[in-house]
């Protein structure tokens, strides 16, 4: 087992090193690249912690989309900070304070009770009623479905927030810049080759999510990435904000979730409850709608506020 222990130590060391350099990097672009690398390493850490679903999510959302977001804006915001940060002494004090917080947290982690309280037995007892294999998806969509409902609304609200920054005259226009690529260039070639593979992998991840690690959020992110690649390769353009079709896709996930949840109120006796017989099919329907909405929302979040006429 010492080899695995060694791997963990190395991984942790590299993670901390990359994290420190991301914060301490002189130039913003370097910090962002370090951050993307950091995201991938954290995904590895999640695999080591037996949380494959989270590893997928971290790699796709944490490293992938957040990285694209930060890279995109770094390209467009060129200036370094002009307001002077805190002086040397102040920086040391803050550093010491943060170190103290870390040490306190470490002590707290170490002093957690040894027979760690766990909900694994409860989940194993309750999961047959949902007909799902993957416990994480069961928790996400059944036991704590209300969290996920609020979460999709968080995404929708974030998108509304981003759109609210558009100038009034451009309201209803197309978000983000118009990307053009040389038709015979390598990016255009990649834009034509990868999307089908991406779509296949996305749908596979969504479908397998019921029983294996995967699920709506990871699949949604992959599909969003595919759409972004197509936009960046100039093959398609971001839809205008006022188009009703786009808005219906955006709200499809929450609407289906709310609909089935309210139906559960009458059929299964509780809001967001599923009748045991049809639980799996209902959950998969909800997941399908969610995947669609999440893909569209995440892509548009990265594209940004409307900047061009419709």
């Amino acid at each position, binding site marked *: 087992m010492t080899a695995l222990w060694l791997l963990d130590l190395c991984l942790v060391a590299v993670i901390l090193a990359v994290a420190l350099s991301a914060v301490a990097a002189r130039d913003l672009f370097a910090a962002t690249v370090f951050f993307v690398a950091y995201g991938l390493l954290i995904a590895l850490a999640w695999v080591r912690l037996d949380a494959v679903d989270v590893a997928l999510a971290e790699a796709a959302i944490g490293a992938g989309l957040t990285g694209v977001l930060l890279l995109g804006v770094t390209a467009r915001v060129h200036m370094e900070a002009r307001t002077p940060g805190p002086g040397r002494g102040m920086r040391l004090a803050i550093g010491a304070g943060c170190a103290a917080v870390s040490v306190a947290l470490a002590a707290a982690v170490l002093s957690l009770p040894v027979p760690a309280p766990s909900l694994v037995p409860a989940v194993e007892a309750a999961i047959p009623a949902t007909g799902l294999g993957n416990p994480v998806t069961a928790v996400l969509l059944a036991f704590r479905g209300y969290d996920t409902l609020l979460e999709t609304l968080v995404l929708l609200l974030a998108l509304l*927030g981003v759109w609210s*920054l558009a*100038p009034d005259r451009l309201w209803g226009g197309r978000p983000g810049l118009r990307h053009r690529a040389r038709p015979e260039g390598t990016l255009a070639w990649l834009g034509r080759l990868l999307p089908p593979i991406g779509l296949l992998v996305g749908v596979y991840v969504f479908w397998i999510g019921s029983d294996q690690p995967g699920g709506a959020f990871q699949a949604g992110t992959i599909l969003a990435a595919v759409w972004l690649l197509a936009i960046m390769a100039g093959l398609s353009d971001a839809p205008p904000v006022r188009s009703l079709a786009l808005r219906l896709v955006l709200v499809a996930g929450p609407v289906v979730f709310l609909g089935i949840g309210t139906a559960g109120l009458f059929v299964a006796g509780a809001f967001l409850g599923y009748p045991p017989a049809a639980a799996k099919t209902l959950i998969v329907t909800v997941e399908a709608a969610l995947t669609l909405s999440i893909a569209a929302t995440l892509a548009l979040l990265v594209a940004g506020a409307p900047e061009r006429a419709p």
Partner: protein
Amino acid sequence: MPPVAAPEAGFPWIVLAILLPLAGMVAALPLGRHARALALLLIPAGLVVALLLAAQVWREGEVTYALGGWTPPLGIALRADGFSAVMVVTTAVVLLGVALFAQSSFRAPPGEETRAALLFWALLLGLWGALNAAFLGNDLFNLYVALELLTLAAVPMASLEARAETLAAALRYLFFALAGSVLYLLGAVLLYGAYGTLDITLLAERAGPEPVTWAAAALMTAGLLAKTALFPLHLWLPPAHAGAPAAASAVLSALVVKASFFLVLRLWFDALPGVMTAAAGQLLAALGAGAILFGSVLALHQVRMKLLVAYSTVAQLGYLFLMVPLAGGGGAAQPWDAGAWSGGVLHAVSHAFAKAAMFLAAGLFLRAAGHDRIAELRGMGAALPMVTLAFGLAGLSLLGLPPSGGFIAKWLLLTTAMASGQWWWALVMFAGGLLAAGYVFRALTPLLARTETPVLPGRPVPRHQQWAVLGLALCSVALGVAPLMPFALLQVGRPEAAEEGIG
């Protein structure tokens, strides 16, 4: 185990109270132009639902609802006790006033959809849903997501007028809010690590005074204080609330900061009563006292009326935290129990009405005079008598003078402070009251000043907006005249710590 049998009888108003606004927000986007009509339909309906929920809590006592049929610790439960019912009703009433006010300032020309019109109403519904989710949730992680929903609805509201200073204010607000949420989540993680559940009722049974719980409580309280903008973490509030449009700043100041205050009370009184020490209560109240003095002094020096009202929010939030060490200090002499706790909550409610009225009034003065520099608003009292009266009545509640709700709250807090021998908090409240008198009358004086030529409002101020402002101010006064019903409703499902005190 199959989903539990339907929770006990009674229509689940608690679910509808959250479902209605959130469904409204989701529907607002595709409805585009008609979002305003949808909101004006849903908000009164929401008030009816809130009142029915309050009636249900009043009749049947505390209402708990296991979502999806899964009972905690696995599932998430909703809980509506007296405190949350009062806050839900307050939210509905304030939103009704704000909607009545904003229905003309955020109206798109017929047949067309404008940015501000659609987004104000969509964000308002989202904000309302997030508030109800925060007031009715009983699971700490679920409350984290509700807080995030609230932040992501409030930040764009603050920067709806996308000018440079509102964008900067919104960004600073976002950083404080996100730092607060992460610290709150960190505390929740530690609690889950130690006790295996995040349900408030279960935590109350399992949590004991161990170092892990103290660390978690400290982190969560720090996070929530950042979101409540309690001194010294208040830097983001004044520019954000003053920069927002009038209707938005009213909702931000009256309700949004109350949600994280509500969670502090849930944490200290419901989830971890045994864990919190009396010293921690004194520290929190000391920060509150700092907020009162600091906020009031700054409010005294403000030139613009909206900034004055925003700094007065910082000061009044200090009052709310004075109640923490006073809870349980009633002593035998008082014929009512949990006086301080109920007083603190009544103050939060009356402040919500008064602050909403004040911000809307300031918005009307801004609209009528084209600017809101206090010194140059001379004679506006004659031009807008109703709005000035509303501003004065709302000011009463901040001063804690009868007949406002603030007075009853201040009376309860003061008697408990003196009865429990903590007289220093009483002195702080008096100082706060006098300072508040300073800045309220400083704002009122130019309004009542008589000018040679009678001042006419630059742009006509519609009557219904004036009625909305006066209505909210009268709500705060009504709370002072008849506080019996809210006070009694508050006692339903009141935590024991509210009476015995903390630690």
